[in-house]
């Protein structure tokens, strides 16, 4: 689907509200958004659920949004990015609550050795997280790359994915991450350098 076709679909959906126009947009973007979310979440089930949420939001608000093809792309990815951030926030809070509960339970037990080990784990922030590769479907195997991406900052990771996987231009990426084009280029440069270092180690 090129820009003209996309704009026509958006226009027709706004005009008629016909689901067939939305379905064209959905089928064009679903794979891309799912891939973007999955690479950021590393859990196919959660990625599926978030992708579904992204398109639900698009479906609900597209009629009111003033968008052309370029801004529409940025808008859809931005929705996805916001949902990813929300998910990470919830996860972090959940982990924090869990570790606190675990800590209190352990304190209550009389086993001093166990207590010490938990204390150490809390200080080190070692919560036995699953690595990204463990979640991915079996057909995709590049654990080094995934591990490397996982070690990047969230922003660096997203910029690399948006630029080299999703093939988006800098203008669109800068809209998605709310940075200037120049800043986006700088982030990409640092990210690719860091990823190369991590992969060659």
């Amino acid at each position: 689907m090129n820009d003209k076709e996309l704009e026509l679909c958006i226009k027709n959906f706004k005009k008629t509200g016909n689901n067939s126009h939305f379905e064209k947009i959905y089928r064009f973007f679903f794979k891309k958004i799912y891939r973007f979310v999955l690479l950021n979440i590393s859990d196919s089930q959660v990625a599926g659920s978030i992708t579904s949420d992204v398109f639900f939001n698009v479906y609900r608000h597209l009629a009111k949004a003033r968008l052309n093809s370029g801004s529409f792309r940025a808008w859809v990815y931005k929705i996805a990015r916001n949902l990813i951030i929300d998910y990470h926030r919830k996860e972090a809070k959940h982990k924090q609550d869990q570790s606190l509960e675990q800590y209190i339970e352990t304190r209550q037990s009389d086993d001093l050795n166990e207590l010490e080990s938990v204390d150490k784990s809390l200080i080190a922030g070692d919560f036995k997280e699953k690595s990204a590769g463990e979640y991915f479907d079996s057909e995709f195997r590049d654990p080094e790359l995934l591990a490397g991406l996982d070690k990047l900052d969230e922003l660096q990771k997203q910029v690399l994915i948006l630029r080299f996987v999703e093939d988006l231009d800098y203008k669109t990426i800068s809209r998605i991450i709310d940075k200037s084009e120049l800043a986006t280029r700088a982030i990409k440069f640092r990210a690719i350098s860091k990823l190369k270092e991590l992969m060659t180690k």
Partner: protein
Amino acid sequence: MNTGKNVNEKVLKKFLSLIDKGMDIDACLSKFPGEYSYLKEYAETIKSLDNLKDIVADKDFEEKSLKDIYLRARTEDIEDSKKISPKHVLLAGLRPAYLKPLIAFLVVLVLIGFSFTGTLYASGDSLPGDILYPVKRTSENIQVAFTPYKYEKNLYLKILEERLSEADMILSRADFKDTDAAESLLGDIDNTYRICRERKYLGADEGEQLQNQITAVKDRLRNRYGIQKSGIDSLSDDASGNEQDTDTNSKSDNQDNGQNEPQLNGNNKTENKNQPDAGEQNQTGNQNQYGR
């Protein structure tokens, strides 16, 4: 060492910018034969990122997700429609863009209405010489202008009563020293009474009673404020007035009244004193007082 790093960075930036322009990675590498080994690792990293494009979602999941979206949207619509009351439906028809100025306009209208009504209400008890007295008189003139002919009788009698009650209030107030206002009021009473008499709004008994009342009030006002009796006023010639031709349009009658009676209001009073052709002036004054 540092310079070498900088050179490498510059080469890398050029290499990446070529890729950004859509050039093939291997073709880009071939452009930098001297830095091939340095750039090769970057090229591999980018290629491996490119391989991530192979990630695909399950086709069944894609279909299921689409159905879920429609289902959720429908469920939300039903829930929303349950929440919406008829009042909301009515307001929903008005887009906020139109609603805001409309509400602002109505608020301003209500405020103006309230202030106007308040001023009118406040002017109800005003006396000649007060700031709000002209408002009261203007509202009376407007009332006269918009009242049908058959209801004018009641209105004029009401106005006459109002003037008399104003005179009573002035007389009851020891601190009222405005002689001009009192003189103006005398003229107004006289004029209103004359209109009532000419148009035969007063019955014989009623007329006599009212005439006595007016004479008493006028005398008291004259005595108190030292106002000279100006020749023949509308009451002094009452005996003949009842007999004389009461045609309101009769010029001679109007001229006669104008020559002898004091002016109808404060504004015309000065003109009357200064202009020799007072009868003509008075005629105009009579016609203008209530706009008829």
